[in-house]
């Protein structure tokens, strides 16, 4: 009998351990009553494990109210005013949210200086981040007024190369097709919100790339390629993919993606 009790204790301890271990299950419901706790746990994890996330929820109206300071860079309608900043309109809320978490973790690469977003994100609460992400996801990028044309107009060949690379990759160079994760229409992962067996949505934080700012895409792709973006499981996937990209491919891809219109298709 003593042994049985001991065994039961072990089991209980095991469960408790599973909860406290937390590192790879930070988003398990059992360990996190609210997303606030989630983010808090994640701030100390070695990396953000986005394989086990659930879709976030937020208050779009509250997000709109909090978005005033964001609009300065990301545009009133979520379309960035300069190419180096990402447009947020129509972006998957989960992507935006987890990007903010990454800033909050102070894990975003910024070259010589701290990225401008890092101090801005530091003051955001978890609810703020969720509200903002939901708000921007709800904006219709197609409805936004047209912005200035790209600084460097792309050539038809460049767009063609970018499209081919996006849709088919380049096996000879070890580049998989981007559409596998970002969708054949570049609107994000086709199973972004499909729950897996455990009720998680591991692909929810894979961004839509359609119509994204070309310079921002170039910057990000280069960061991935150069191994500077290593803070989440999706970063690890993307680093593996981007490592084979050369500058020309990055240009081609970014140009083609930026050229896509939300309205079309």
């Amino acid at each position, binding site marked *: 009998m003593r*042994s*049985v009790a*001991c*065994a039961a204790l*072990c*089991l209980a*301890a*095991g469960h408790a*351990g*599973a909860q*406290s*271990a937390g*590192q*790879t*299950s930070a988003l*398990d419901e059992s360990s996190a009553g609210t997303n606030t706790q989630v983010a808090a746990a994640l701030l100390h994890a070695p990396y953000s*494990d986005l*394989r*086990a996330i659930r879709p976030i929820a937020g208050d779009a109206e509250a997000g709109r109210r909090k978005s005033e300071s964001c609009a300065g860079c990301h545009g009133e309608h979520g379309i960035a005013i300069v190419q180096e900043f990402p447009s947020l309109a129509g972006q998957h809320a989960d992507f935006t949210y987890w990007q903010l978490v990454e800033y909050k973790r102070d894990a975003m690469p910024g070259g010589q200086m701290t990225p401008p977003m890092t101090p801005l994100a530091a003051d955001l609460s978890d609810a703020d981040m969720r509200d903002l992400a939901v708000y921007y996801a709800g904006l219709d990028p197609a409805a936004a007024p047209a912005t200035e044309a790209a600084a460097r107009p792309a050539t038809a060949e460049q767009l063609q190369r970018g499209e081919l690379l996006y849709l088919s990759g380049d096996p000879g160079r070890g580049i998989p097709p981007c559409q596998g994760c970002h969708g054949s229409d570049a609107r994000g992962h086709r199973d972004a919100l499909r729950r*897996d*067996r*455990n*009720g*998680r949505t*591991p692909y929810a934080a894979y961004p839509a790339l359609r119509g994204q700012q070309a310079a921002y895409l170039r910057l990000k792709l280069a960061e991935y390629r150069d191994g500077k973006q290593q803070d989440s*499981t*999706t970063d*690890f*996937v993307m680093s*593996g993919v981007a490592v084979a990209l050369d500058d020309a491919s990055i240009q081609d891809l970014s140009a083609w993606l930026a050229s896509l219109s939300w309205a079309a298709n």
Partner: protein
Amino acid sequence: MRMLQRSQASRLTLCMVLLLIAPFARAQDSGLGIDLQFGNALDPSGLEPSSGIGTLGCDPDGASWLTSVRKRTPTGFLYACPPDHPEFLLGGEWQYRGAFSVGYLGLSGDQDNMLFSRYSNWDDGLYLGGSFRYEKPSDGSYFDVRASRINDDDQYLRALYGRAGKYRIQAFVRSQSNVTSSNARSIWEGIGSNNLTLNGALTPASSTSAQVAAVSASQPEQSLVVVRDKQGLGINYFISPRWVAFGNISHESRAGARPFGGPFFFNYPFADNGGAYEIPRPIDDSTVNLNGGARWTGSAWRMEFAYSGSFFRHANGTFDYQVPFAVRPVVPGLVSPLLTSGQFAYEPENDYHHLRVNLTRKIALNGEFSLAASGGELSQNDQLAPPMTCTGQFGIPVIPGNLYDCANWNTSAALSRARADLAIKTSMLDARVVLQPGRDVTWRASAKYDRQDYQGDYDAFNPLTGQWGYPAENGAQGSVVPFESGIWDPGPGASNITRIRNLPLDRELLQFTLSADVRLNTSNSLGTTYSFDRTKRGNREVATTNDHSLKLTWHNRTFDWLTFRANYTYLRRTGSEYEFNPYEYTFSTSLPGFVIPPNGVPAHTVSAMRKYDVGGRTQHKADLMATFVLPSDMTFYASVRGDWNDYSAVIGRRGYDALGGSLQWEWQPTTATVASVWYGFDRSSLDLANVNDAALTPDPVLGGATYPEANRWWSRDRQRNHYAGLTLNQTVGRIKLDANWNWSSSRGRTSYSFNSPGALTTPALAALLTGQFPDMLYRAHAVSLGVAIPVNRSFSVRVFDRYERGRVSDWHYLGFENGQVLDHRVDTDGGPTDYSANLIGLAFEVKL
């Protein structure tokens, strides 16, 4: 290499040559050979020899960056997590990883108890372990070594050297122990040798029961252990993409002792007479196993040729034991010559050769035709021991024909043949066709012919005296009961009934099988098999048995969360007429000069007996297996199995039913936690019936004079077992915890009923009988806990503790606590006993 000096050496050379011709050789695999597992009780998987269970956790990153859902097998079970192997380090052309540990095991409690230490022979002391892997990425070479040492009797070192896809050489040395008794009280000295002599306080054939009991009681309890030491070498070589050659050789020596018998006739009917000894017999032998062959594989053809050989050698052909008690004739006033020692023949040295050819060809309809042929020979030609070891005379004086001169029996000249010269030749031919006319249908047909032929006859005939038979029970039987010596002669012993020749057991099997599998849809498949076996046996009760069996299989995956498998088998065995005494010709009753005794030749056995290995039988067998794929990375598994056998027997085994079930739950919620819990239950019931003989008459019929209805009795043995287990591996930070609990509770209850006290040896005891034996019990707990704490990257400490407790009761040994010598019965082994033992270990592990 003692074994090579025998006359068989030439044959051995021949097979060595064969080995060389049949190019090289493959390491053992699931198709051939043994020694596929290297591990021990501290690390049964053999995966973590450096410091034991639980130290190799899961890769904390998981298996994939893409998803956190644990990968499952197609059936739905969770794969073991990818282990957190240390990264390879670079060293020139080679990369390597590895770890070794030095530890100390401390035992307390009943550490020697047989049930606790059976296959480990636990002892306090240093233990060592290590595992290293070297790889040369430029050409695929690798070197892999695993070793663990708990003590001299439980250790292994296994090394692999190879080049991926080219060759693989395996070498190993291992010691495996088998504790056969931990509470032996031996009245003999020289345990382990082939001459057991009585303790100095005892005189052969002249000691009293009290003297022997005193010596037995004063002996310390000691362990009898048999240790196997084995060395092996094997190679698997890709000559080309088509040809693979393989070969293995191993040598094993066994040494030690185990409890064994020692017959000097009955004691139960004859107080202060006879002798029933349990001796600690020596084990001292060795075996060389060889196999080798070549395999050819192409897209359409496949073939394989393999040779296996095994050569068993003993250190001594016989072993002797002195006996403390004298036997005396039941005839008052007579005194038999003293019999001071008994003898056993060691299991004979034997040679085994086996050749096998498999040929397979792809045929039309996406099918395969395959042919397998094998032939082998088990042979032995041991020097035969003389029938007796005595000097002077044995038997009973005065009564004519009952006293024998030892000189006529203690020499090889007393044998009809000096050597055994026996063999069994086996041959097997198997042909099968599989056709897959569509993706959803598979047809199968096979035919098999298998035969074993005995070669060699032995007559128990003494050319020195012209007598047949043998001195039974070391001469004791004939020293107690007149005309029961076991020796037949045309004179005074002309009515003596005894065995006079060996019993060849030829067998021939013809088997046909037809089966069809149909996939009904993507989630359902059905299979059915009909098979017919006809077995012909020489010199057995049933000359031909016919087995018809029908098997149904159903597999269902309709639900994403359930994999269900069901199998049902019906088998019916019929056969030719049951002949209750096919052994007549092996008895002296078949000799020309045999004189039928006044009351006739007693019946060999009751004619209603049906021996279950050849008798009729109807069997139903079912198993159901369900694997539930649950959320949160859990799996639940349930299975039920039943086996119901009805033997159409009035006397003999009548039925054997077994039913069992098990439940298992597995959980891998994170890479830090791996947990499983299981519970199992099974029970079985074995029914038998028998009848006590009332008189020595020729009537074999149940209900007749020999086997009267009144003497019938029935017995039922029911077994009931519960089992459970739990494992938990948990990583907390850098600390690894492991816990393991294993429990079983078994109860065996043997009950009986009888028609009248005539069924009993001592009818007067009938009133005292309870209808059942005391329950046979075995309840065991084993709990182990371990913690591994890394000090830095390359150094960690592991502390573990295992506590085991067992409660056992085996009615065979009830009363032994009051002494193991009862009248002329001497038992050496005290039987299984309760235990409670603790093992604590401390290990320092160094990673490279």
